[in-house]
């Protein structure tokens, strides 16, 4: 079996950043992804990113993707595409990673593995929720921004996190009308400036509202929404029917953790990070020696934090491979931690900062 120093699973923002850092340190690294193209969700992000100007803020997501791909290519890392990983097995000679490529089973033996599998959209069930025309907001975003197909003309968005707000805006940029954005909580979940964009475009944001049912014969033709009280109970008499041909669901993401479960990582449950997350230490290493995590699998956050976590895991792997002496690795990691800490400040970031502290505490045996 072919042996490699390190292997990164998932070529999204976290995986690409991790790969670049390992290669920068002089390590041999294979980046593997199940998709035909690398970049994860970056290439459907057509908006300018937030964050620090020094670290690509103000640049559109797909341009950040292009930059990361160019860096990956020039770093000399090997990229395996069309290769879904189905098994990660810690082994006395290393970590065996099994994957499919063109319907053939293959395997590699790596000294270190970084899991950067990302997250998956949550779903919502309600009467009529299986009708065609009802889809995840991320799905609609892929349709318009990657495949250039408009899913419908009259859209109802469910969920006011940044995904719901951004995708609403992008659906309007693509030529659809977003008739309303509804949110069960009494306040908007995402950034006010994203909400401001769609308000200026005429989309009402209805907080304390939920979707009661979708109506239609062969596809969604209308939705019934209803106001809810502070315990999320529908208020009779507040129902409203809106004609729509598309309903997008943006009710959060969950970490894609199957591979981490499979290889025996210890988990903890932190709702704010999306549910069950593998416990990791300050080096992003899990409870299984040699297996690291980065990005949404380690707690759902933003692309900006995913890239920083990827860098951190990459540097830690390079150090663990003996490529950096501690006196070089420590300041490098500290720099990344400082940036992560800054990204996790403010009314939105502080809660994620606290949740991440809880996760790190769990690694120290606090769980």
């Amino acid at each position, binding site marked *: 079996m072919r042996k490699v120093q390190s292997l990164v699973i998932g070529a999204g923002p976290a995986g690409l950043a991790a790969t670049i850092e390992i290669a920068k340190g002089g390590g041999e690294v294979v980046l593997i992804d199940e998709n035909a193209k690398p970049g994860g969700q970056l290439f459907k992000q057509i*908006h*300018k*990113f*937030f*964050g*620090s*100007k020094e670290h690509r*803020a*103000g*640049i*559109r997501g797909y341009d950040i993707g292009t930059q990361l791909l160019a860096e990956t290519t020039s770093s000399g890392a090997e990229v395996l595409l069309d290769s879904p990983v189905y098994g990660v097995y810690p082994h006395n000679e290393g970590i065996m990673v099994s994957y499919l490529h063109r319907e053939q089973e293959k395997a590699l033996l790596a000294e270190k593995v970084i899991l950067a599998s990302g997250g998956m959209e949550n779903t919502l069930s309600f009467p009529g929720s299986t009708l065609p025309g009802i889809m995840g907001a991320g799905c609609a975003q892929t349709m318009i921004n990657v495949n250039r197909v408009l899913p419908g003309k009259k859209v109802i968005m469910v969920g006011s996190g940044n995904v719901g707000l951004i995708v609403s805006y992008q659906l*309007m*940029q693509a030529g659809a009308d977003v008739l309303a954005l509804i949110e069960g909580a*009494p*306040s*908007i979940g995402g*950034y*006010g*400036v*994203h*909400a*401001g*964009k*769609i*308000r*200026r*475009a*005429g*989309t009402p*944001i209805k*907080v304390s509202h939920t979707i009661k049912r979708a109506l239609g014969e062969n596809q969604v033709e209308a939705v019934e929404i209803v106001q809810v009280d502070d315990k999320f109970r529908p208020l009779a008499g507040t129902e409203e029917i809106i004609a729509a041909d598309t309903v997008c669901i943006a009710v959060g993401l969950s970490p894609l953790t199957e591979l981490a479960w499979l290889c025996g990582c210890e988990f903890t449950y932190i709702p704010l990070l999306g549910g069950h997350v593998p416990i990791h230490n300050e080096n992003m290493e899990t409870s299984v020696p040699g297996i690291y995590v980065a990005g949404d699998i380690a707690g759902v956050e933003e692309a*900006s934090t995913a890239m920083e976590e990827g860098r951190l895991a990459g540097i830690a792997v390079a150090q663990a491979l003996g490529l950096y002496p501690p006196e070089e690795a420590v300041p490098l990691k500290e720099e990344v931690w400082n940036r992560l800490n*800054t*990204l996790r*400040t*403010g*009314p*939105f*970031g502080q809660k994620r900062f606290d949740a991440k502290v809880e996760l790190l505490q769990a690694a120290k045996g606090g769980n």
Partner: protein
Amino acid sequence: MNEGVKYTGIPSAEELKTCPGVVSVSRLEKGPVAVIECVQQIPCNPCEKACPFGAITVGQPITSLPVINEEKCTGCGLCIACCPGLAIFRVHKNYTETTSLVDFPFEYYPSPQEGSVVDCVGRDGQFITKGKVNKVKKNKQSDGTTVVSVEVPKKYCMEVRSIYRK
């Protein structure tokens, strides 16, 4: 119903009044100036680097609200297209005796035609007044964000923030 950006997506009058990016009434009289309607602490600072005159400060931590220096701001408008939140506008209140210019970011197709009369809207997307498109700016630096300048009756210069998209 609760007011404010957290509940409606629109900064309330109170939030705008205390916002360090929104200039004073007296500064508005003196000539074109940036109006940064950024009222929520999010990790973001491209506006700081966008200003060639050092008139915008975010500093540390990165979630601090941008502060505008009224004296340093020349009203050049370069910051408008650099804000990922599309929350920066330029207001030239005394453009003529009766009209003002309001510049805002616009990322929809088609762009409006210079010289055409358009429906101008407020922060809530509702119609406020007719206005004349004074300029449509697109350049490489603004990376796909068009900056549209509309001429509107003076009394609406702090209300008009966009136009109907077609």
